């Protein structure tokens, strides 16, 4: 199945801004994060099709997955 993965801010460094990627049915968000080597403790928000989801959320064909890092400075 095809999933569009969008990375934001620092997660783009050494990876990509946006890419349509192939996954087997039943793949969850955690698999994508590990595949892209995105540390869990740096994640601020994960959205699929503009809705917040958790790491165990299973992806569907045609999903838009967006991953944002945590920002907390002042």
């Amino acid at each position, binding site marked *: 199945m095809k999933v569009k993965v969008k990375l*934001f*801010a*620092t997660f*783009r460094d050494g990876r990509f*801004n946006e890419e349509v990627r192939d996954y087997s049915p039943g793949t969850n968000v955690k698999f994508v994060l590990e595949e892209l080597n995105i540390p*869990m*403790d*740096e*994640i*601020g*928000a994960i*959205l699929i099709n*503009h*809705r*917040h989801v958790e790491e165990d959320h299973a992806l569907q064909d045609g999903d838009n997955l967006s991953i*944002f*890092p*945590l*920002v*907390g*400075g*002042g």
Partner: protein
Amino acid sequence: MQEVRSFLLKHAEGDILPSRHHVFASTHFGLSMGQVERIALESGLLPSRYQRNRNTISITQQLRIFRGTVAVVGCGGLGGYVIELLARLGVGRLIAVDPDVFEEHNLNRQLYSTPAMLGRPKVEAAYLRVKEINPAVTLVPVKCAFSKTNGFDILEGADVVVDALDSIPVRLELSDVCNDMNAPLVHGAIGGWFGQVATQFPGEDTLRRIYNRPAGANKGVEKSLGNPSFTPAVIASLQSAEVCKILTGQGQTLSRRKLHINLLDMESIELPY
């Protein structure tokens, strides 16, 4: 009071009160600049310093802004700019909260940091600056670290609270105190080229949802990226616009949404909360 009002109306040019008469009235009647400003605005007169506001902010709205109290929690990168903008906007009372003194590593971005101010409290610098730029504004300096223990006393009387902190756990404490006090909270956070803004009204749990992962995190991308000069200025400006809209009751705020700003690729995206 009637005597002051008559004086101001007599010396107004149209509905503009020239600053020389504002200052004279303050000295002559033994009133503060703020007291004269209130009487002027209540009489339908706009102090001349605000004349370029007028097609954006009406005299009635300018009075609402003047009657407002805004607490700015954190007076570093974001807080310095927010205080500057709100003082120029004409917010009548500002409560500035920060426990720190200026250090050398603040000089790249913190508006009130100068070599001469190193070692001096940030809230003292804010107090001196506001007095200089808009003497009608009262700034209450509070040199202490905000917490849920002292928060209720610090925020007493605030109509709007600005989150300009740099610690995620303290931001969450601030959010809880604001909700308990029924105060709207304008959140801003920065790191490197990136920033975010959101507005939380009483009863909403936006801050808790923004920072619900990873549990117990203290810092975000700013830990490794630091902050350049322009990112706090951008995010503080957006926060100040939110404060202005809350005080005047116009426009659409960032309630239940967060704006993510990327200055490196010049993108902004809205996230629902």
